[in-house]
Protein backbone atom coordinates (compact mmCIF):
# COMPACT_ATOMS: atom_id res chain seq x y z
CA UNK A 1 0.00 0.00 0.00
CA UNK A 2 2.67 2.48 1.07
CA UNK A 3 4.99 1.29 -1.67
CA UNK A 4 2.28 1.87 -4.27
CA UNK A 5 1.75 5.33 -2.87
CA UNK A 6 5.42 6.19 -3.46
CA UNK A 7 5.27 4.72 -6.95
CA UNK A 8 2.29 6.93 -7.82
CA UNK A 9 3.95 10.02 -6.39
CA UNK A 10 7.11 9.36 -8.36
CA UNK A 11 5.07 8.89 -11.55
CA UNK A 12 3.14 12.11 -11.03
CA UNK A 13 6.04 14.32 -10.04
CA UNK A 14 9.08 15.18 -12.09
CA UNK A 15 12.48 16.07 -10.78
CA UNK A 16 13.39 19.65 -11.59
CA UNK A 17 17.09 18.95 -11.29
CA UNK A 18 19.47 16.41 -12.73
CA UNK A 19 22.05 17.23 -10.06
CA UNK A 20 23.50 14.35 -8.05
CA UNK A 21 22.11 15.09 -4.61
CA UNK A 22 23.80 12.30 -2.72
CA UNK A 23 26.99 14.14 -1.80
CA UNK A 24 25.53 17.49 -0.81
CA UNK A 25 25.79 18.65 2.80
CA UNK A 26 23.00 20.49 4.59
CA UNK A 27 24.93 23.78 4.27
CA UNK A 28 25.38 23.30 0.52
CA UNK A 29 21.72 22.41 0.11
CA UNK A 30 20.62 25.56 1.93
CA UNK A 31 22.73 27.66 -0.46
CA UNK A 32 21.32 25.91 -3.52
CA UNK A 33 17.75 26.27 -2.27
CA UNK A 34 18.23 30.00 -1.75
CA UNK A 35 19.84 30.31 -5.18
CA UNK A 36 16.86 28.42 -6.63
CA UNK A 37 19.17 25.80 -8.14
CA UNK A 38 17.33 23.13 -6.24
CA UNK A 39 13.88 22.64 -4.74
CA UNK A 40 12.69 20.95 -1.55
CA UNK A 41 10.55 18.78 -3.81
CA UNK A 42 13.68 17.53 -5.59
CA UNK A 43 15.16 16.54 -2.24
CA UNK A 44 12.07 14.68 -1.09
CA UNK A 45 11.61 12.96 -4.45
CA UNK A 46 15.25 11.88 -4.42
CA UNK A 47 14.79 10.23 -1.02
CA UNK A 48 11.50 8.61 -2.05
CA UNK A 49 13.09 7.37 -5.26
CA UNK A 50 15.84 5.62 -3.29
CA UNK A 51 13.30 4.10 -0.90
CA UNK A 52 11.28 2.84 -3.87
CA UNK A 53 14.34 1.33 -5.55
CA UNK A 54 16.24 -0.02 -2.55
CA UNK A 55 14.04 -0.57 0.43
CA UNK A 56 12.48 -3.81 -0.79
CA UNK A 57 15.95 -5.25 -0.28
CA UNK A 58 17.06 -3.24 2.73
CA UNK A 59 13.84 -3.13 4.79
CA UNK A 60 15.03 -0.01 6.60
CA UNK A 61 11.61 1.66 6.84
CA UNK A 62 8.46 0.59 8.68
CA UNK A 63 6.38 3.56 7.58
CA UNK A 64 6.90 6.04 4.74
CA UNK A 65 4.81 9.22 4.70
CA UNK A 66 5.31 10.20 1.07
CA UNK A 67 2.22 12.43 0.72
CA UNK A 68 2.86 14.45 3.84
CA UNK A 69 6.54 14.85 2.99
CA UNK A 70 5.70 16.14 -0.47
CA UNK A 71 3.13 18.58 0.94
CA UNK A 72 5.74 20.01 3.29
CA UNK A 73 8.26 20.26 0.45
CA UNK A 74 5.75 22.24 -1.58
CA UNK A 75 5.26 24.66 1.32
CA UNK A 76 9.03 25.20 1.58
CA UNK A 77 9.23 25.72 -2.19
CA UNK A 78 6.49 28.33 -1.90
CA UNK A 79 8.61 30.24 0.64
CA UNK A 80 11.57 30.01 -1.72
CA UNK A 81 9.44 31.28 -4.59
CA UNK A 82 8.40 34.29 -2.49
CA UNK A 83 12.05 34.96 -1.52
CA UNK A 84 11.13 34.55 2.15
CA UNK A 85 13.68 33.74 4.88
CA UNK A 86 14.12 30.01 5.20
CA UNK A 87 14.39 28.14 8.50
CA UNK A 88 17.76 26.46 9.22
CA UNK A 89 16.88 22.97 7.93
CA UNK A 90 14.43 23.96 5.21
CA UNK A 91 13.62 21.10 2.87
CA UNK A 92 16.01 18.60 4.48
CA UNK A 93 14.45 15.10 4.36
CA UNK A 94 15.03 12.95 7.46
CA UNK A 95 13.83 9.75 9.06
CA UNK A 96 13.23 8.91 12.70
CA UNK A 97 13.65 5.70 14.64
CA UNK A 98 10.20 4.34 15.44
CA UNK A 99 10.52 5.22 19.14
CA UNK A 100 9.88 8.92 18.45
CA UNK A 101 6.25 9.93 18.89
CA UNK A 102 5.00 11.46 15.66
CA UNK A 103 1.57 13.04 15.65
CA UNK A 104 -0.84 11.08 13.47
CA UNK A 105 1.89 8.69 12.29
CA UNK A 106 2.04 5.16 13.68
CA UNK A 107 4.80 4.72 16.29
CA UNK A 108 5.44 1.11 17.29
CA UNK A 109 8.81 0.82 19.10
CA UNK A 110 8.99 -2.17 16.69
CA UNK A 111 6.94 -4.17 19.18
CA UNK A 112 3.64 -5.91 18.50
CA UNK A 113 2.34 -4.38 21.73
CA UNK A 114 2.31 -0.98 19.97
CA UNK A 115 1.54 -2.27 16.46
CA UNK A 116 -1.35 0.15 15.90
CA UNK A 117 -0.41 2.97 18.27
CA UNK A 118 -0.88 6.46 16.81
CA UNK A 119 0.56 9.27 18.97
CA UNK A 120 -1.50 12.40 19.50
CA UNK A 121 1.56 14.61 19.96
CA UNK A 122 5.09 14.99 18.59
CA UNK A 123 8.25 14.24 20.58
CA UNK A 124 10.06 17.52 21.36
CA UNK A 125 12.92 16.68 18.98
CA UNK A 126 10.47 15.94 16.14
CA UNK A 127 8.58 19.17 16.83
CA UNK A 128 11.78 21.20 16.78
CA UNK A 129 12.98 19.63 13.54
CA UNK A 130 9.64 20.30 11.85
CA UNK A 131 9.74 23.91 13.04
CA UNK A 132 13.22 24.20 11.54
CA UNK A 133 11.79 23.16 8.16
CA UNK A 134 13.14 19.59 8.09
CA UNK A 135 10.84 17.08 6.40
CA UNK A 136 10.04 13.73 8.03
CA UNK A 137 9.86 11.05 5.32
CA UNK A 138 9.29 7.99 7.49
CA UNK A 139 9.97 5.84 10.52
CA UNK A 140 12.78 3.32 10.63
CA UNK A 141 13.11 -0.25 11.88
CA UNK A 142 15.09 -1.17 15.00
CA UNK A 143 15.27 -3.81 17.72
CA UNK A 144 12.01 -3.68 19.69
CA UNK A 145 12.26 -0.95 22.38
CA UNK A 146 15.96 -0.65 21.44
CA UNK A 147 16.78 -4.09 22.89
CA UNK A 148 19.42 -5.55 20.60
CA UNK A 149 22.52 -5.00 18.51
CA UNK A 150 21.42 -6.28 15.10
CA UNK A 151 17.82 -5.07 14.45
CA UNK A 152 16.81 -8.76 14.38
CA UNK A 153 14.76 -8.23 17.55
CA UNK A 154 12.24 -6.11 15.66
CA UNK A 155 8.82 -7.78 15.75
CA UNK A 156 8.15 -6.71 12.16
CA UNK A 157 11.13 -7.12 9.82
CA UNK A 158 14.87 -7.71 9.57
CA UNK A 159 16.86 -4.81 8.12
CA UNK A 160 19.86 -5.68 6.00
CA UNK A 161 23.27 -4.07 5.84
CA UNK A 162 23.48 -1.95 2.68
CA UNK A 163 27.12 -3.01 2.15
CA UNK A 164 26.27 -6.72 2.23
CA UNK A 165 22.65 -7.85 2.33
CA UNK A 166 23.55 -11.07 4.18
CA UNK A 167 24.88 -9.08 7.15
CA UNK A 168 23.12 -7.20 9.95
CA UNK A 169 23.11 -3.39 9.93
CA UNK A 170 23.84 -3.32 13.67
CA UNK A 171 21.40 -2.12 16.25
CA UNK A 172 19.33 -1.13 17.77
CA UNK A 173 18.99 1.79 15.28
CA UNK A 174 19.81 -0.44 12.26
CA UNK A 175 17.05 0.95 10.04
CA UNK A 176 18.23 4.53 10.66
CA UNK A 177 21.85 3.72 9.80
CA UNK A 178 20.94 1.68 6.69
CA UNK A 179 18.61 4.47 5.50
CA UNK A 180 21.26 7.20 5.91
CA UNK A 181 23.98 5.08 4.28
CA UNK A 182 21.69 4.59 1.26
CA UNK A 183 20.75 8.25 0.88
CA UNK A 184 17.17 7.87 2.10
CA UNK A 185 17.11 11.19 3.92
CA UNK A 186 20.10 13.27 5.01
CA UNK A 187 19.96 12.25 8.64
CA UNK A 188 18.05 10.08 11.03
CA UNK A 189 16.91 10.97 14.51
CA UNK A 190 17.86 8.03 16.73
CA UNK A 191 18.42 7.03 20.32
CA UNK A 192 21.42 5.51 22.14
CA UNK A 193 21.13 3.74 25.49
CA UNK A 194 24.18 1.46 25.20
CA UNK A 195 25.46 1.92 21.66
CA UNK A 196 22.26 1.99 19.60
CA UNK A 197 23.47 4.93 17.51
CA UNK A 198 27.23 4.34 17.38
CA UNK A 199 27.28 0.61 16.60
CA UNK A 200 24.82 0.66 13.64
CA UNK A 201 26.50 3.85 12.32
CA UNK A 202 29.80 1.93 12.43
CA UNK A 203 28.34 -1.20 10.78
CA UNK A 204 26.82 0.89 7.95
CA UNK A 205 29.81 3.22 7.38
CA UNK A 206 28.13 6.44 8.51
CA UNK A 207 28.62 9.01 11.28
CA UNK A 208 26.71 8.81 14.57
CA UNK A 209 26.60 11.04 17.63
CA UNK A 210 25.51 10.00 21.11
CA UNK A 211 25.10 13.18 23.16
CA UNK A 212 25.68 13.97 26.83
CA UNK A 213 22.82 12.70 28.99
CA UNK A 214 20.19 15.45 29.12
CA UNK A 215 21.58 17.48 26.20
CA UNK A 216 18.56 16.65 24.00
CA UNK A 217 15.02 16.25 25.30
CA UNK A 218 13.65 12.72 25.69
CA UNK A 219 10.05 13.97 25.85
CA UNK A 220 7.84 11.85 23.62
CA UNK A 221 10.46 9.16 23.05
CA UNK A 222 9.43 5.65 24.07
CA UNK A 223 11.56 4.90 27.13
CA UNK A 224 14.13 2.10 27.51
CA UNK A 225 16.38 2.97 30.49
CA UNK A 226 15.58 6.51 31.56
CA UNK A 227 18.91 7.23 33.29
CA UNK A 228 20.84 6.02 30.21
CA UNK A 229 18.68 7.00 27.20
CA UNK A 230 20.05 9.77 24.98
CA UNK A 231 18.71 11.22 21.75
CA UNK A 232 21.20 11.64 18.94
CA UNK A 233 21.82 11.64 15.23
CA UNK A 234 23.05 9.46 12.40
CA UNK A 235 24.21 11.28 9.29
CA UNK A 236 26.80 11.06 6.54
CA UNK A 237 29.04 13.81 7.87
CA UNK A 238 30.10 15.58 11.04
CA UNK A 239 29.16 18.91 9.52
CA UNK A 240 25.53 17.81 9.01
CA UNK A 241 25.34 16.48 12.56
CA UNK A 242 26.53 19.87 13.87
CA UNK A 243 23.78 21.68 11.92
CA UNK A 244 21.02 19.42 13.24
CA UNK A 245 22.25 19.12 16.83
CA UNK A 246 21.96 22.85 17.23
CA UNK A 247 18.22 22.58 16.54
CA UNK A 248 17.41 19.72 18.92
CA UNK A 249 19.78 20.43 21.86
CA UNK A 250 18.71 22.42 24.89
CA UNK A 251 16.48 22.68 27.91
CA UNK A 252 12.93 21.36 27.64
CA UNK A 253 10.41 21.95 30.42
CA UNK A 254 8.75 18.67 29.50
CA UNK A 255 11.94 16.71 30.33
CA UNK A 256 13.26 17.66 33.77
CA UNK A 257 16.60 15.93 33.09
CA UNK A 258 17.54 18.26 30.22
CA UNK A 259 20.53 20.49 30.94
CA UNK A 260 20.25 24.27 31.06
CA UNK A 261 23.80 24.84 29.77
CA UNK A 262 23.61 27.19 26.77
CA UNK A 263 23.54 25.55 23.33
CA UNK A 264 26.66 26.62 21.43
CA UNK A 265 26.99 27.10 17.68
CA UNK A 266 28.19 23.57 16.97
CA UNK A 267 29.48 24.55 13.52
CA UNK A 268 31.67 27.45 14.59
CA UNK A 269 34.76 25.42 15.54
CA UNK A 270 34.62 23.08 12.55
CA UNK A 271 37.67 23.68 10.40
CA UNK A 272 39.78 25.07 13.24
CA UNK A 273 41.92 21.94 13.36
CA UNK A 274 43.03 20.02 16.42
CA UNK A 275 46.64 21.10 17.01
CA UNK A 276 47.66 20.19 20.55
CA UNK A 277 44.60 18.02 21.23
CA UNK A 278 45.44 15.44 23.87
CA UNK A 279 43.98 12.19 22.54
CA UNK A 280 43.98 9.22 24.92
CA UNK A 281 44.14 5.60 23.76
CA UNK A 282 42.54 3.43 26.49
CA UNK A 283 44.51 0.16 26.58
CA UNK A 284 41.50 -1.96 27.63
CA UNK A 285 39.79 -1.27 24.29
CA UNK A 286 42.64 -2.70 22.26
CA UNK A 287 43.26 -5.93 24.16
CA UNK A 288 42.62 -9.40 22.79
CA UNK A 289 39.37 -10.16 21.04
CA UNK A 290 39.38 -7.26 18.62
CA UNK A 291 39.41 -8.11 14.92
CA UNK A 292 42.93 -7.44 13.51
CA UNK A 293 41.54 -5.58 10.48
CA UNK A 294 39.63 -3.25 12.81
CA UNK A 295 42.71 -2.71 14.94
CA UNK A 296 44.84 -1.88 11.88
CA UNK A 297 42.32 0.65 10.58
CA UNK A 298 42.06 2.39 13.95
CA UNK A 299 45.85 2.41 14.37
CA UNK A 300 45.98 4.21 11.04
CA UNK A 301 43.33 6.70 12.21
CA UNK A 302 45.38 7.35 15.36
CA UNK A 303 48.41 8.07 13.13
CA UNK A 304 46.30 10.48 11.09
CA UNK A 305 45.22 12.31 14.26
CA UNK A 306 48.88 12.54 15.22
CA UNK A 307 49.64 14.04 11.79
CA UNK A 308 46.86 16.56 12.36
CA UNK A 309 48.71 17.73 15.47
CA UNK A 310 47.10 15.65 18.21
CA UNK A 311 49.24 14.41 21.07
CA UNK A 312 48.58 10.67 21.40
CA UNK A 313 48.82 9.28 24.93
CA UNK A 314 48.22 5.88 26.47
CA UNK A 315 45.53 5.79 29.11
CA UNK A 316 43.71 3.24 31.23
CA UNK A 317 40.07 2.64 32.16
CA UNK A 318 40.41 -0.31 34.55
CA UNK A 319 36.68 -0.89 35.12
CA UNK A 320 35.95 -1.36 31.40
CA UNK A 321 35.48 -5.11 31.79
CA UNK A 322 32.64 -4.54 34.26
CA UNK A 323 30.77 -2.13 32.02
CA UNK A 324 28.52 -4.72 30.35
CA UNK A 325 27.12 -6.22 33.56
CA UNK A 326 26.84 -2.80 35.25
CA UNK A 327 25.16 -1.29 32.20
CA UNK A 328 22.74 -4.16 31.63
CA UNK A 329 21.70 -4.46 35.27
CA UNK A 330 20.96 -0.72 35.36
CA UNK A 331 19.19 -0.82 31.99
CA UNK A 332 16.98 -3.85 32.59
CA UNK A 333 15.95 -2.66 36.05
CA UNK A 334 14.70 0.55 34.48
CA UNK A 335 13.09 -1.51 31.69
CA UNK A 336 11.01 -3.50 34.16
CA UNK A 337 9.61 -0.23 35.54
CA UNK A 338 9.26 1.61 32.21
CA UNK A 339 7.49 -1.23 30.43
CA UNK A 340 4.97 -1.76 33.24
CA UNK A 341 2.84 0.84 31.45
CA UNK A 342 1.88 -1.64 28.71
CA UNK A 343 -1.17 -2.96 30.50
CA UNK A 344 -3.64 -3.39 27.64
CA UNK A 345 -5.91 -0.63 28.97
CA UNK A 346 -4.94 2.86 27.84
CA UNK A 347 -3.17 2.03 24.57
CA UNK A 348 -1.43 -0.81 22.83
CA UNK A 349 -2.31 -4.45 22.29
CA UNK A 350 -5.12 -5.77 24.45
CA UNK A 351 -6.25 -9.37 24.68
CA UNK A 352 -9.97 -9.05 24.08
CA UNK A 353 -10.66 -12.60 25.29
CA UNK A 354 -9.41 -11.87 28.81
CA UNK A 355 -12.14 -12.31 31.40
CA UNK A 356 -10.77 -10.19 34.22
CA UNK A 357 -8.20 -7.47 34.82
CA UNK A 358 -5.45 -9.77 36.00
CA UNK A 359 -5.64 -12.07 32.97
CA UNK A 360 -5.80 -8.99 30.71
CA UNK A 361 -2.37 -7.95 32.01
CA UNK A 362 -0.85 -11.43 31.69
CA UNK A 363 -2.27 -12.27 28.28
CA UNK A 364 -1.77 -8.85 26.66
CA UNK A 365 1.88 -8.78 27.73
CA UNK A 366 2.43 -12.45 26.82
CA UNK A 367 1.21 -11.87 23.27
CA UNK A 368 2.48 -8.32 22.78
CA UNK A 369 6.11 -8.64 23.89
CA UNK A 370 8.77 -10.59 22.00
CA UNK A 371 11.30 -12.90 23.73
CA UNK A 372 14.08 -10.33 24.29
CA UNK A 373 11.61 -7.86 25.79
CA UNK A 374 10.29 -10.56 28.14
CA UNK A 375 13.83 -11.56 29.13
CA UNK A 376 14.78 -8.01 30.01
CA UNK A 377 11.60 -7.25 31.93
CA UNK A 378 11.95 -10.49 33.91
CA UNK A 379 15.65 -9.99 34.66
CA UNK A 380 15.00 -6.40 35.71
CA UNK A 381 12.13 -7.50 37.93
CA UNK A 382 14.45 -10.09 39.47
CA UNK A 383 17.27 -7.56 40.00
CA UNK A 384 14.90 -5.21 41.83
CA UNK A 385 13.05 -7.85 43.85
CA UNK A 386 13.32 -8.28 47.61
CA UNK A 387 16.52 -10.06 48.63
CA UNK A 388 18.31 -9.36 45.32
CA UNK A 389 18.22 -5.57 45.15
CA UNK A 390 21.53 -5.04 46.98
CA UNK A 391 23.38 -7.75 45.07
CA UNK A 392 22.22 -6.62 41.64
CA UNK A 393 20.71 -3.17 41.25
CA UNK A 394 22.58 -1.37 44.02
CA UNK A 395 25.84 -3.11 43.12
CA UNK A 396 25.44 -2.04 39.50
CA UNK A 397 24.89 1.59 40.55
CA UNK A 398 28.05 1.48 42.66
CA UNK A 399 30.07 0.06 39.78
CA UNK A 400 28.51 2.71 37.60
CA UNK A 401 30.10 5.29 39.89
CA UNK A 402 33.49 3.56 39.52
CA UNK A 403 33.11 3.59 35.72
CA UNK A 404 32.33 7.31 35.79
CA UNK A 405 35.35 7.94 38.06
CA UNK A 406 37.51 6.02 35.55
CA UNK A 407 36.46 8.46 32.83
CA UNK A 408 36.80 11.51 35.13
CA UNK A 409 40.40 10.50 35.81
CA UNK A 410 41.14 9.85 32.15
CA UNK A 411 39.80 13.30 31.21
CA UNK A 412 42.15 15.00 33.70
CA UNK A 413 45.00 14.16 31.30
CA UNK A 414 43.18 13.75 27.97
CA UNK A 415 40.82 16.01 26.03
CA UNK A 416 39.23 13.11 24.15
CA UNK A 417 39.64 9.33 23.93
CA UNK A 418 39.74 7.18 20.80
CA UNK A 419 38.43 3.61 20.79
CA UNK A 420 36.85 0.99 18.53
CA UNK A 421 33.04 0.90 18.30
CA UNK A 422 32.71 -2.85 17.80
CA UNK A 423 35.22 -5.66 18.37
CA UNK A 424 34.11 -7.37 15.17
CA UNK A 425 32.81 -6.59 11.67
CA UNK A 426 29.07 -6.69 10.85
CA UNK A 427 28.02 -10.29 11.49
CA UNK A 428 25.73 -12.54 9.46
CA UNK A 429 21.98 -12.36 9.88
CA UNK A 430 21.03 -15.17 12.26
CA UNK A 431 24.57 -15.65 13.60
CA UNK A 432 23.91 -14.39 17.13
CA UNK A 433 20.13 -14.35 17.14
CA UNK A 434 19.76 -17.56 19.12
CA UNK A 435 22.14 -16.66 21.94
CA UNK A 436 20.99 -13.58 23.89
CA UNK A 437 24.20 -13.33 25.94
CA UNK A 438 26.41 -13.31 22.81
CA UNK A 439 24.28 -10.47 21.45
CA UNK A 440 24.79 -8.51 24.68
CA UNK A 441 28.56 -8.96 24.44
CA UNK A 442 28.56 -7.23 21.03
CA UNK A 443 28.17 -3.96 22.96
CA UNK A 444 31.43 -4.30 24.88
CA UNK A 445 32.95 -1.01 23.65
CA UNK A 446 29.77 1.09 23.43
CA UNK A 447 27.93 0.46 26.72
CA UNK A 448 30.80 1.94 28.72
CA UNK A 449 29.95 5.58 28.18
CA UNK A 450 26.19 5.56 28.83
CA UNK A 451 26.50 4.82 32.59
CA UNK A 452 28.82 7.87 32.80
CA UNK A 453 26.47 10.17 30.85
CA UNK A 454 29.24 11.24 28.46
CA UNK A 455 29.07 11.76 24.67
CA UNK A 456 30.64 9.73 21.86
CA UNK A 457 31.01 10.23 18.12
CA UNK A 458 31.32 7.21 15.79
CA UNK A 459 33.13 7.79 12.50
CA UNK A 460 33.91 5.50 9.56
CA UNK A 461 37.64 4.80 9.10
CA UNK A 462 37.99 2.16 6.42
CA UNK A 463 36.82 -1.11 4.98
CA UNK A 464 37.75 -4.72 5.62
CA UNK A 465 38.90 -6.98 2.77
CA UNK A 466 35.31 -8.16 2.39
CA UNK A 467 34.16 -4.52 1.82
CA UNK A 468 32.45 -4.19 5.21
CA UNK A 469 32.81 -0.82 6.95
CA UNK A 470 35.05 -0.22 9.96
CA UNK A 471 34.60 2.60 12.45
CA UNK A 472 35.98 4.14 15.61
CA UNK A 473 34.59 6.43 18.26
CA UNK A 474 35.81 9.57 19.93
CA UNK A 475 34.70 9.90 23.54
CA UNK A 476 34.67 13.14 25.49
CA UNK A 477 33.65 14.49 28.90
CA UNK A 478 30.11 15.74 29.52
CA UNK A 479 29.09 18.59 27.20
CA UNK A 480 32.21 18.20 25.02
CA UNK A 481 30.11 17.92 21.84
CA UNK A 482 31.77 21.00 20.27
CA UNK A 483 35.24 19.47 20.66
CA UNK A 484 34.08 16.01 19.52
CA UNK A 485 32.62 17.51 16.37
CA UNK A 486 35.70 19.68 15.80
CA UNK A 487 37.96 16.61 16.01
CA UNK A 488 35.61 14.48 13.91
CA UNK A 489 35.42 17.20 11.27
CA UNK A 490 39.23 17.49 11.14
CA UNK A 491 39.41 13.74 10.50
CA UNK A 492 36.73 13.85 7.79
CA UNK A 493 38.57 16.71 6.07
CA UNK A 494 41.56 14.44 5.38
CA UNK A 495 39.66 11.19 4.75
CA UNK A 496 36.84 10.22 2.41
CA UNK A 497 35.49 7.06 4.09
CA UNK A 498 32.31 8.92 4.99
CA UNK A 499 31.72 9.79 1.34
CA UNK A 500 31.62 6.20 0.11
CA UNK A 501 28.23 4.85 -0.94
CA UNK A 502 27.18 1.23 -0.64
CA UNK A 503 24.75 0.87 -3.53
CA UNK A 504 24.34 2.55 -6.85
CA UNK A 505 20.88 3.39 -8.08
Amino acid at each position, binding site marked *: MLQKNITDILKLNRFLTDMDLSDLTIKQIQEKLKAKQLSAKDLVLDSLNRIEKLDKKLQAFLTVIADQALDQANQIDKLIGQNKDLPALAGIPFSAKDVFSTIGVKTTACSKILES*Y*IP*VYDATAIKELKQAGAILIGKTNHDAFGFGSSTENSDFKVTRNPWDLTKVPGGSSGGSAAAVASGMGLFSLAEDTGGSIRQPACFCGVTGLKVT*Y*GRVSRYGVIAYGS*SLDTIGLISRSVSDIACVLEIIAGKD*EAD*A*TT*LSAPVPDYSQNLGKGIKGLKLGVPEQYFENGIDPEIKDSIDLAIKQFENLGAKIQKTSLP*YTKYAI*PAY*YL*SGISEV*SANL*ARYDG*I*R*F*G*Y*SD*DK*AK*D*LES*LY*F*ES*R*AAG*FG*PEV*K*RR*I*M*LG*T*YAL*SAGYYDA*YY*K*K*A*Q*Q*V*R*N*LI*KQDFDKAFEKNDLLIAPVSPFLPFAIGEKAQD*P*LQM*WLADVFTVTIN*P*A*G*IPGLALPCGFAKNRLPIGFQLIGP*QLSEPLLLQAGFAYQEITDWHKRSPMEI
Partner: protein
Amino acid sequence: MNKMPKLTSEQVKHVAELARIGLDEKETERFKDQLSAILDFVSKLQEIDTSKTQPLSQTTGLKNVFREDLVKPSLPQEKVLLNAPEKYNGYFKVKPVFD
Protein backbone atom coordinates in the same frame (compact mmCIF):
# COMPACT_ATOMS: atom_id res chain seq x y z
CA MET B 1 33.89 -16.49 42.93
CA ASN B 2 31.08 -19.03 43.25
CA LYS B 3 29.09 -19.86 40.19
CA MET B 4 25.52 -18.64 40.43
CA PRO B 5 23.09 -21.45 41.16
CA LYS B 6 20.75 -21.98 38.20
CA LEU B 7 17.27 -20.53 38.45
CA THR B 8 14.53 -23.07 39.11
CA SER B 9 11.33 -23.24 37.04
CA GLU B 10 9.46 -21.99 40.12
CA GLN B 11 11.69 -18.91 40.34
CA VAL B 12 11.16 -18.13 36.65
CA LYS B 13 7.40 -18.48 37.10
CA HIS B 14 7.52 -16.28 40.20
CA VAL B 15 9.39 -13.50 38.38
CA ALA B 16 6.98 -13.74 35.42
CA GLU B 17 4.12 -13.45 37.91
CA LEU B 18 5.64 -10.31 39.44
CA ALA B 19 6.15 -8.85 35.95
CA ARG B 20 2.60 -9.80 34.85
CA ILE B 21 3.83 -11.83 31.88
CA GLY B 22 2.04 -15.06 31.01
CA LEU B 23 4.49 -17.89 30.20
CA ASP B 24 3.86 -21.41 28.91
CA GLU B 25 5.94 -24.43 29.98
CA LYS B 26 8.22 -24.29 26.94
CA GLU B 27 9.01 -20.62 27.45
CA THR B 28 9.60 -21.21 31.16
CA GLU B 29 12.21 -23.87 30.41
CA ARG B 30 13.91 -21.79 27.72
CA PHE B 31 14.01 -18.67 29.89
CA LYS B 32 15.31 -20.70 32.83
CA ASP B 33 18.49 -21.51 30.89
CA GLN B 34 18.87 -18.12 29.22
CA LEU B 35 18.24 -16.06 32.34
CA SER B 36 20.56 -18.28 34.40
CA ALA B 37 23.38 -17.80 31.89
CA ILE B 38 22.93 -14.02 32.00
CA LEU B 39 22.70 -13.87 35.81
CA ASP B 40 25.84 -15.95 36.02
CA PHE B 41 27.58 -13.50 33.70
CA VAL B 42 26.48 -10.35 35.55
CA SER B 43 27.49 -11.81 38.92
CA LYS B 44 31.04 -10.91 37.84
CA LEU B 45 30.34 -7.58 39.57
CA GLN B 46 30.57 -9.31 42.96
CA GLU B 47 34.38 -9.44 42.51
CA ILE B 48 34.58 -5.70 43.07
CA ASP B 49 34.82 -4.23 46.55
CA THR B 50 32.23 -1.45 46.59
CA SER B 51 31.97 -1.08 50.35
CA LYS B 52 33.24 2.51 50.10
CA THR B 53 31.46 3.46 46.85
CA GLN B 54 28.23 5.44 46.65
CA PRO B 55 25.65 4.24 44.13
CA LEU B 56 25.24 6.60 41.15
CA SER B 57 22.27 6.90 38.82
CA GLN B 58 22.07 10.62 38.02
CA THR B 59 25.30 11.39 36.18
CA THR B 60 24.97 15.09 35.38
CA GLY B 61 24.46 16.26 38.97
CA LEU B 62 21.00 17.77 38.47
CA LYS B 63 18.92 17.95 41.63
CA ASN B 64 15.39 19.10 42.41
CA VAL B 65 14.31 20.66 39.13
CA PHE B 66 11.45 23.04 39.86
CA ARG B 67 9.07 24.99 37.67
CA GLU B 68 6.09 27.28 38.23
CA ASP B 69 2.95 25.30 39.01
CA LEU B 70 0.85 26.83 36.25
CA VAL B 71 -2.36 25.52 34.76
CA LYS B 72 -1.84 24.74 31.11
CA PRO B 73 -4.16 23.26 28.51
CA SER B 74 -4.04 19.47 28.34
CA LEU B 75 -4.97 17.06 25.56
CA PRO B 76 -8.71 16.93 24.81
CA GLN B 77 -10.56 13.85 26.06
CA GLU B 78 -11.16 12.31 22.65
CA LYS B 79 -7.45 12.46 21.85
CA VAL B 80 -6.47 10.88 25.15
CA LEU B 81 -8.89 8.04 24.45
CA LEU B 82 -7.90 7.68 20.79
CA ASN B 83 -5.68 4.64 21.35
CA ALA B 84 -7.77 2.99 24.07
CA PRO B 85 -8.71 -0.60 23.17
CA GLU B 86 -12.02 -0.22 24.98
CA LYS B 87 -13.80 2.96 26.03
CA TYR B 88 -17.22 3.89 27.34
CA ASN B 89 -18.83 7.33 27.67
CA GLY B 90 -15.50 9.13 27.65
CA TYR B 91 -13.76 6.70 30.01
CA PHE B 92 -11.21 3.93 29.64
CA LYS B 93 -13.14 0.70 30.03
CA VAL B 94 -11.46 -1.83 32.33
CA LYS B 95 -12.20 -5.53 32.77
CA PRO B 96 -13.84 -6.56 36.05
CA VAL B 97 -11.45 -6.89 38.98
CA PHE B 98 -13.70 -9.28 40.94
CA ASP B 99 -16.00 -12.05 39.72
